[in-house]
């Protein structure tokens, strides 16, 4: 599944870049994140609880950051699995000031691939796309609120 989109963060690119890699902030912004601990340079172990209407699932996995080019881009690799299935995501995040050049704003655009497996993949076709979008939206909304 391809995932792409963009979001405006109300901070300058340097700050945006910084918070997007700050485990403490990420842990708060990621929906359902229960813990995020560093296990290596640019590598974190994550526990997540996804709660979506009646659906609930616990995931454990890893987050890795690669190809860092501050403050313009980096790659995010996420892997998680739980009883209801597993997911893998690999995406490129690009940060740029908006075209109009407004100060203190960053456009984060992302583009990547996500793989979903297990029960989730088999029964959730109708829901996966919308859910993924919602999680990303929630993440950025929260990030924006924490950014200031």
């Amino acid at each position, binding site marked *: 599944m391809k995932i792409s989109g963009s979001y405006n963060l109300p901070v300058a690119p340097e700050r945006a870049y910084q918070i997007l890699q700050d485990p403490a902030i990420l842990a708060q912004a990621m929906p359902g994140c229960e813990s995020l601990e560093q296990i290596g340079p640019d590598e974190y172990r994550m526990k997540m609880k996804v709660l979506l*209407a009646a659906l*609930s699932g616990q995931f454990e996995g890893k987050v890795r950051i690669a190809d860092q080019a501050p403050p313009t881009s980096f790659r995010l690799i996420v892997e998680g699995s739980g009883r*209801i299935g597993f997911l893998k995501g690999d995406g490129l995040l690009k940060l740029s000031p908006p075209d109009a050049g407004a100060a203190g704003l960053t456009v984060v655009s992302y583009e990547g691939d996500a793989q979903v497996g297990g*029960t989730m993949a088999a*029964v959730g076709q*109708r829901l996966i796309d*919308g859910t993924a979008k919602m999680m990303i939206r929630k993440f950025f909304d929260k990030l924006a609120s924490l950014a200031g």
Partner: protein
Amino acid sequence: MIAQKFEYTAPKSLDEALHLLASGAKPLAGGMSLIPMMKLRLAAPEHLVDLRTIKDLNYIREAGGQLHIGATASHYEIESSALLRQKCPLLTETAAAIGDVQVRNMGTIGGSVAHADPAADYPAALQALEAKFVLNGAKSERTVSAADFFVDAFTTTLEPGEILREVIVPIDDARTGTSYQKMVQPASGFAIVGVAVRVRQNARKVSFARIGVTGLSNHAYRATAAEKALEGKTPSANDIQNAAALVAQGVDANSDLHASADYRKHLAAVHAARAIKSAISRIT
């Protein structure tokens, strides 16, 4: 397809149910969405409180110039209600379009609204009807409009421990026509898109239009740009096309195996046009 262990309570009163819900139990209504998820272990509630055993949650009645529908009214009860057929045909038409007979016998309006599936049928109609939902907690009661209730995919303003107790819809006068047009996803029965239209005419001019759209994006919404495009006009076929084209404008459309985002947007416009035409033709 075997659920995890859970407790089950069949309360007699709303208070009893709300009390249990306050301590973390989950409401069970028709079970048509919840139980399949439990069997697949996508959901594992520890305690279910059955709302259908509470007699005073099951009613359809007229009071104070409005229609009041209890949370556990089944899709079939709504579809076959003489009162609703006469005073809110949009709701009976929508109920009849849901899934299949078995699902309509079991599923409830409260469950459907609370679950907020982005492809559920009722939410389109309830947006067009500007419905109000009465939400009760152990110590609270509040009324929320459909416009504010649906927040995101499967996400509503319901707080933990709260239930949707009642749906309130207005009674329209005779110059109002309504229609629900749906493209069915053949496997699940849900809407690929569904458009509910409610229009009032005054001397052939549209004085009022409400359009609810489901299936297209993360939650059902009102297509206000399309509504405005109709209001004040004696709409020609062209006007209808133009208004319909606005329902999907700017929407981040869903995409899945059954319909791509572009196709969904196209279908939304087609079904909007059909629903508008049909609604106008039904004005007596």
